[in-house]
């Protein structure tokens, strides 16, 4: 029993230590942002590997999610003769919810895990220590550009996901199931609000991008520099990011649409 309580205390301590370290790390990283902005080449390289290389998985997933939504939505709506509203159903589900959340989860799996593994391996092969000894701060040179790239990429990827999803819904709804094309777009136009729906979705994707990238770069930087340590950190990045995205989604949804 005593051992159990001791273990609980130890893991509590270690949790708060990690939390403290990650916050200090965030402050250092934010302080490194100006040094990245004066060297845009570092940022552009990372935007390519974090953002552009994530495009295929985002586009393909967006298309399928939109198509499935249209299929499911049509089957329900047609019972009430309301299949004209299919455009609204697809657009609202994607813009408010699925766009930011699914992009957040995919982003953590594709880009987040790659960031953690890359930074973790740089630590394991002494590249980060080598930079420190060359009087180059790795947080400014390596971490900050990756963090900004993730922060910028995620909302853009979520927007692309949403746009492709809506076209996926259009393809199935209008193209295959025969929903009226005018109704699909017109109802969407009248019912989807720029502020309540689109902007709130954008805010969600910005928050998810911030948190998922922060977790990814911190886990990489804080890794135990062995092959086992890097593999554990990579797993943790995906798991923690998924929890963070889903948990924050609930909190943000409650704040935005709760009343």
């Amino acid at each position, binding site marked *: 029993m005593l051992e159990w309580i001791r273990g609980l205390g130890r893991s509590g301590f270690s949790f708060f230590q990690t939390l403290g370290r990650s916050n200090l790390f965030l402050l250092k990283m934010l302080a490194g942002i100006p040094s990245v902005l004066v060297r845009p080449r570092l940022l552009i390289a990372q935007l390519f590997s974090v953002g552009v290389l994530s495009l295929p998985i985002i586009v393909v997933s967006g298309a399928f999610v939109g198509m499935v939504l249209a299929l499911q939505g049509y089957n329900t709506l047609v019972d009430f003769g309301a299949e004209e509203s299919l455009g609204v159903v697809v657009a609202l589900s994607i813009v408010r919810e699925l766009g930011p959340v699914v992009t957040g989860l995919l982003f953590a799996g594709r880009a987040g895990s790659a960031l953690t593994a890359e930074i973790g391996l*740089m630590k394991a*092969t*002494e*590249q980060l*220590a*080598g*930079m*420190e*000894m*060359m*009087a*180059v*701060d790795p947080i400014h*040179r390596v971490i900050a550009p990756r963090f900004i790239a993730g922060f910028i990429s995620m909302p853009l990827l979520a927007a692309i996901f949403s746009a492709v999803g809506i076209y996926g819904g259009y393809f199935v709804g209008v193209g295959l199931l025969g929903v009226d094309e005018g109704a699909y777009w017109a109802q969407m136009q009248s019912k989807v609000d720029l502020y309540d729906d689109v902007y709130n979705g954008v805010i969600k994707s910005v928050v998810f991008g911030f948190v998922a990238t922060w977790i990814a770069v911190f886990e990489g930087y804080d890794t135990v520099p062995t092959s086992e340590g890097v593999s554990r950190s990579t797993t943790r990045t995906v798991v923690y990011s998924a929890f963070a995205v889903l948990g924050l989604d609930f909190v943000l949804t409650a704040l935005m649409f709760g009343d």
Partner: protein
Amino acid sequence: MQSSTEKTAINGSETLVKIRGLHYARGDRVIFDGVDLDIPRGKLTAIMGPSGSGKTTLLRLIGGQLAPDQGSIEVDGLRVHELGRTDLYGLRRRIGMLFQSGALLTDLTVFDNVAFPLREHTDLPEAMIRDLVLMKLQAVGLRGARDLQPSELSGGMARRVALARAIALDPMMIMYDEPFTGQDPISMGVLVQLIRLLNDALGLTSIIVSHDVKETAAISDYVYVISEGKVIGQGTPEALGKTDSDLVNQFMQGLPDGPVPFHYPAPDYMEDLLNA
């Protein structure tokens, strides 16, 4: 980049690195328990000791990547662990370090790796950087390998590239972390010769941390032997070869048994077998 006048002593002392009463522990494990060391300027000093005796930790303490629990570490008259970030980074620009793995940046070519410190710390035009990089690569014999990726290099070549990078900013001192580990006889010979040659030709001060006794002793001016947190022997390689200390003798001669026993502590052999 540092001019040669800046590189000379702030205090004109003959000692470049002065360590006094160094205590350092990691968790419950004491790594240094009162170590005093002097690294003379312009010489090649070796720090030897069994694996796990904290040799690499010592280099990290000198480079300011770790801070001592007690005691002081002075490099060129500056107390490393009391320096602010700007001063510490200023000092590090004058120190080159060769990591055991080479620590080359894997996403850059050999040329860009050597150019890295120059591009980070100077505003030199690209044409001049090219000349400097080729000169450094020529010094380590790898001018022809400039376009290779680090993954295409052998272990010995990677270390030579790292050495070219370490001398890119014309440092006052280079620290070598186990430079000979895992090298075949040819690359070992090349490295041994290069380290001595660069030290003398560039007027550097070198610290080699190693447990390759023969190779290291062959090129060092002075040797410290560290074990169990203390300096157990010091002197010129010749003097250490004739030491009275059993422990130093065991280490220098590579004897399997002695003060450091062959057997890990265990219960009585006979009892252990019979209890099965």
